[in-house]
């Protein structure tokens, strides 16, 4: 019965022994005990078998999927560049078009003398306000996205 205590303390460190993570001294002490103890030897060999079983099981079938996935990643890179380029063009186009119409609208409005000046400035202010609000929301979104990415990489 006094054999139970050393076994318990050995078995607690059996995983670390198996993984060669103990100090040389501890590793040696464990080795001596295990050599003379069938129970600990049995548990050690069970854990060793379990370790390779887990590895075999979890890597099973990954190899074939792996090469396909790598291909996908490699093809993904130009695709991402293209889509970034596409978005860039789209935004530039939208800004130019928007700018053109805003310019047209304001010059026409300011030149139109049939409407009183304060109505003209009211309409102008209304549209400017809408535009600024839109910019504010856009900026919030962009900042949120950036900090989010930053978090993902650095935590």
């Amino acid at each position, binding site marked *: 019965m006094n054999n139970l205590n050393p076994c318990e303390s050995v078995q*607690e*460190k*059996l*995983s*670390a022994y198996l*993984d060669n*993570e103990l100090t040389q001294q501890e590793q040696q002490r464990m080795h001596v005990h295990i050599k003379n103890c069938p129970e600990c030897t049995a548990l050690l060999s*069970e*854990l060793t078998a*379990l*370790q390779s*079983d*887990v*590895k*075999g*099981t*979890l*890597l*099973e*079938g*990954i*190899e074939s*999927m*792996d090469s396909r*996935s*790598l291909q*996908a*990643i*490699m093809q*993904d*890179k130009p695709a*991402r560049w293209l889509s970034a380029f596409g978005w860039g063009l789209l935004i530039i186009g939208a800004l130019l078009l928007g700018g053109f119409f805003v310019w047209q609208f304001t010059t026409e409005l300011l030149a139109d003398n049939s409407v009183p000046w304060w109505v003209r400035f009211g309409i102008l202010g209304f549209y400017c306000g809408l535009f600024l609000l839109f910019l504010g929301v856009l900026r919030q979104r962009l900042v949120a996205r950036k900090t989010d990415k930053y978090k*993902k*990489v650095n*935590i």
Partner: protein
Amino acid sequence: MQTTENPYLQWYPGALALARNLLGCHASAEDVLQTSISKTLGSSALPIDEAAQRVWFFKVVRNGCFDYLRDQKRFNADADIEEAVGFSDTPDLVDASQRQQWVRAALLTLSSEQREIIVLRDVNDLSYADIAHILQLNSGTVMSRLHRARMALRQALLMLEKSHPVSTQATSATSSPGGTHE
């Protein structure tokens, strides 16, 4: 794997195994891995030596998984995940041996915390110090958590084997009538 110059690709299979075990879904695990790999393409502040690169990569993959789970709002729905890790999503399971099926089933009885540490050590051969870095624990905790996880896995396997004592014999006998197995 030598055809590409990205050093992170060598850890792809093990990292995919980790993501699968955390997410329980093969397709989303691959998504997370692709995102992680693309981060290694774009980022300029990558570690230089290989050991640090590896720890960094596993951290990125792990965080990617947790972000994914958070997005899916199933952070605590272990039951859902385990259902998915199981048998419906594993097309190649037919080829897996009885022992491998049991190992899979036994892994599902563990908490994802326990599965994670087993995958990091046994599939990826990471040192306790590296695992401590990745999981933000101290080495002593890694040691005891890993051991408890392995003992729990062993226990689960014993229970499974006890509850299906004959089926191994039956399947291996019918699957190889030529008698060339083992």
